[in-house]
C-alpha cells in the first residue's frame, strides 16, 4: 500500500434551497488530518453564510443532492434535510504539522 502525505477534509453544508448561494441551515465537518475533532452539537454558528462563501474559501464541491420527483400521494411528507452539498479540501499533512 502506498502511503501519501495527502489527507482529505470534508465539509457538508445543508442549504435553504438547491442554489449554492442560499443560507446554510446545517453543517458537519470531518477532518482526515486528525488535527481537528468535530462532533454533534459542537457549534451553533455556521462556518459559512452560504455555499458560495465556502467555494471562495477554497473548498471544492464534490457532490450535491439531486432534485427528485415527488412521489404521488407523498408530496407533503418531510424527512431528511433536502439540499446537501459535500465539499473537500486536500491538504498536505507535513505542511500542516510544520505550520
Amino acid at each position: 500500500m502506498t502511503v501519501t502525505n495527502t489527507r482529505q477534509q470534508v465539509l457538508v453544508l445543508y442549504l435553504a434551497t438547491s442554489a449554492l448561494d442560499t443560507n446554510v441551515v446545517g453543517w458537519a465537518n470531518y477532518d482526515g488530518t486528525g488535527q481537528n475533532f468535530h462532533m454533534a452539537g459542537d457549534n451553533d454558528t455556521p462556518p459559512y453564510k452560504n455555499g458560495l462563501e465556502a467555494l471562495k474559501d477554497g473548498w471544492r464541491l464534490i457532490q450535491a443532492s439531486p432534485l427528485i420527483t415527488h412521489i404521488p400521494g407523498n408530496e407533503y411528507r418531510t424527512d431528511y434535510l433536502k439540499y446537501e452539498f459535500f465539499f473537500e479540501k486536500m491538504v498536505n499533512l507535513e505542511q500542516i504539522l510544520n505550520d
Partner: protein
Amino acid sequence: MTDDLTKLNSKQMAEFAARGFLRFDSIVPKKLNDKFLKEVGHVPLDEVNNPIEHYGKVMTSSAIPVLRPGSLLCDAYPKTSAIYDILNLPSVEGAIASLVGNKPIFDHHFLHITFPPKFYEGNQQKSQHYHQDSTIDPRQAFDVQMMYYPHDVTVDMGGTRFLPGSHLRIVSEAAIGRYQNIVGQQRMVCPAGTLLFLHMGIWHGGGLNMSDQMRYMFKIRMNPGERQMRLWDTSDLGNEHYEQRPIFWTGTDPGNEIHQTLMKPEPWFEADTGRLEMMNRVRFWRYLLGDNNFDVDYWLTRVEREYT
C-alpha cells in the same frame, strides 16, 4: 387521577404542535429532586470508581422499578416513590393528561447518567449523534417522552440537545447522524426540577459532560391511552381561531395568537419544505382538534380545492 390537575391551555398545546416540545423549569420542588437522587443511589463523585460499576449499582439497587411495557402509567411506580409524586403534581399530571390522555400507557424508562472527563482519560469522547428515538413512525397519534432533570444542568454538563420543529419529519432513527449542527438547535441548560416534554419525533442527542459532576436525566416514554382529541383545556379557543386570517396583503393586525404560533417558522426550515412544515402543522392541529376544516393561511384549503 386527581381532580385538581392543571391542564395545558391552547397556546401551550399549539406550541407543542408547532415545535414538538414543552419545557417547564423548576416545576418539581427541591424536596422531590433530593428524594429522587437519594432513591436512585446518587453518591459524591469521589465514591464512584468507574461508570460501569456505578451504573451497575444504580441498575440493581436503585428504587427505579423494572417494568414491562404496555401497563398503565398510573400503576407503574410505587406510591412511596419520588417518581410517583412527580407524576402526580397537579401541573405535571395535567400536562400528561393534555398530551396523552387520562390513562397513558407506560412504554419504557431509563436513567441516563453522563460522567465527567476524568473517567475517560486517554479516550476521545464524543457527544451523541442526532437521532430520532425508536424507529420510523408515521402515526398521527403520538407518544411523549418526559425528561426530568433532578439537578441544575450547566452548559458544560452537556444537557440534551434537540431541534425544535423537527418532530413531524419522518426519518429512520440514527440515519440523521450525519447532521452535526443545525441552525436553531437548543440544549438543556436548566435549573433543578425541570421537565421537558418531547414529541416522539424530535431530533435530539445527549451532550458531552465536560464538568466535574455527574449529570442525571430520567426519561419516561408514554403512549396515548385514547384518541388525542381536545384533551387539553380548550376553553380559550375563541371563534376567531376557526376563521381564516388574511394572507399576503394583511394590514398590521397579526391575527389570532394560535395562528401565529402554528405559522412561526424555525430558522433551519428550508425555503420550500418550510411550507410543507406549515401544512403538516395544520394537519396535526386538525387531528388534535378533530376538525378537518381547520386551516391557517389557506395552506391546505387551497390544495384541497379539487373538483371531480
